[in-house]
């Protein structure tokens, strides 16, 4: 599980105390849902985003 407070501090967030809690608590809740899904991915599954070759040809 990610330590969002440590990540916030490492990226230079000026927030501390309750302000930092307000920032990180929703991420901690999201983490509990998201991390098991991410850990369950098979290596062959590619992302949904597409690079569109047709861009700019019209």
């Amino acid at each position, binding site marked *: 599980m990610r330590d969002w407070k440590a990540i916030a501090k490492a990226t230079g967030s000026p927030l501390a105390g309750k302000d930092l809690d*307000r*920032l990180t608590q929703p991420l901690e809740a999201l983490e509990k849902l998201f991390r098991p*899904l991410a850990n369950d991915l098979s290596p062959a599954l590619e992302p*949904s985003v597409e690079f569109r070759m047709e861009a700019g040809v019209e």
Partner: protein
Amino acid sequence: MTIREAASALRDKRVSPVELTTAAISRIDRLNSKLRAFIRVLPEYALSRARLAETEMASGRDRGPLHGIPIAVKDLFAMRGVPTTGGSRIFENLVPDFDSTVVERLEGAGAVILGKLNMHELAYGVTSANPHFGVVRNPWNTERSPGGSSGGSAAAVVANMVYGAMGSDTGGSIRIPAAFCGAVGLKPTYGRVSRYGALPLGYSLDHMGPITRCVRDAGLFLNAIAGRDPHDDSSSRRPAIDFVPDDGCSLRGLRLGFPENFYFERLDSEVESAVRGAIARAESLGAEIKPVWVPDISALNAVGQVILLSEASAVMEPYLENRASFGADVLTRLDQGRLIPATDYINAQRIRRKLRIEFDKLWSDVDCILTPTTPNTAPVIGQNTIRLGGRDEDARLATTRLVRGINVLGLPALSIPCGLSGSGLPVGLQILGPAFDEATILKVGAAMEDGGVGIPPCPLS
């Protein structure tokens, strides 16, 4: 009056475009200080467009059912020479020198744009309590939220300021205000409507669509705005069709899915009762109601949050030095998004593909799926938590719980009003369909509307 009724009145010369526009301006003058639905009203511009429509129609040029009809657009659609704020101080001086494709197509269809509508700041929230341009209020009860982010669009339509309005939907932002305000809201398939010229929030989640007073009017809007746009690489090459359901369309032969999991958990009892009543009515109108087990919507919602946090912060990163220009809730979410690692964003897009494949299998069993749009009716303005199923939930997460995941899938979704609570607040029914099958969800919505599913007009005078 609906767009179809107004269009008929125009062609019968019972009213003129200038008269319709003048009446709309008077209504806005009277109500906007209370509802704060508009950020900017364009009366002179609208009247000049109405006069043009009148001249064209008198000379036999008919651009179709939107010709001469007063509408408005959420203030994130670029209009040449008109400030486009996105509901934000960051963009308050942004004056585009081009029209968004949506505006270009609506004006090409002859619609008269009356102004730019208020919204949640940057479309990044569900209250439309805008700290810069005023708190939008629900026309059914002005102490209540209209929902968001397209709250001004829904309020303006329901309060009869305009006949229809454009909104955008990144995690429910058309369907939520439509449900809370008792309007029809259509989120078309991702790629059906060009995003060109609309201020982005989440590139891969943003959908543009109408909010109207009836289902067929939403079809009229979609007819005008759908189709390939070379300015938007994600726009589909599928040919646009006539999306307006036939008069007398029927539910017979249609298989409507009734989710046995997720969508009917932790609902306000009045919402549940109204939605179950609408589904029973659909069955009595000839539809086959089929129980379905939907894939993991909680997972879809989590994926949607990771993608939106990442994409929105990427969009707004150049402006984040100017912290005092953001409202507190939006700034918090933008700060959160900056912390999401690239690996999480990529993995969210990988999970997205997996869930989309799982969800697509449903469409071999059913033609549409019926759900509540929101688990609750409109909360009081400023209310941060909602009690549902015996526990308190964050109001934003509760409000988006039944709609956010559908943006991850890119599927079309329609919200129609299906009842009023005991305190007189609208309840929304959500109709989900397969990709690019807006025609079927509109047909289902129109047949239910014809069959008596709906609410009386808003009493705001």
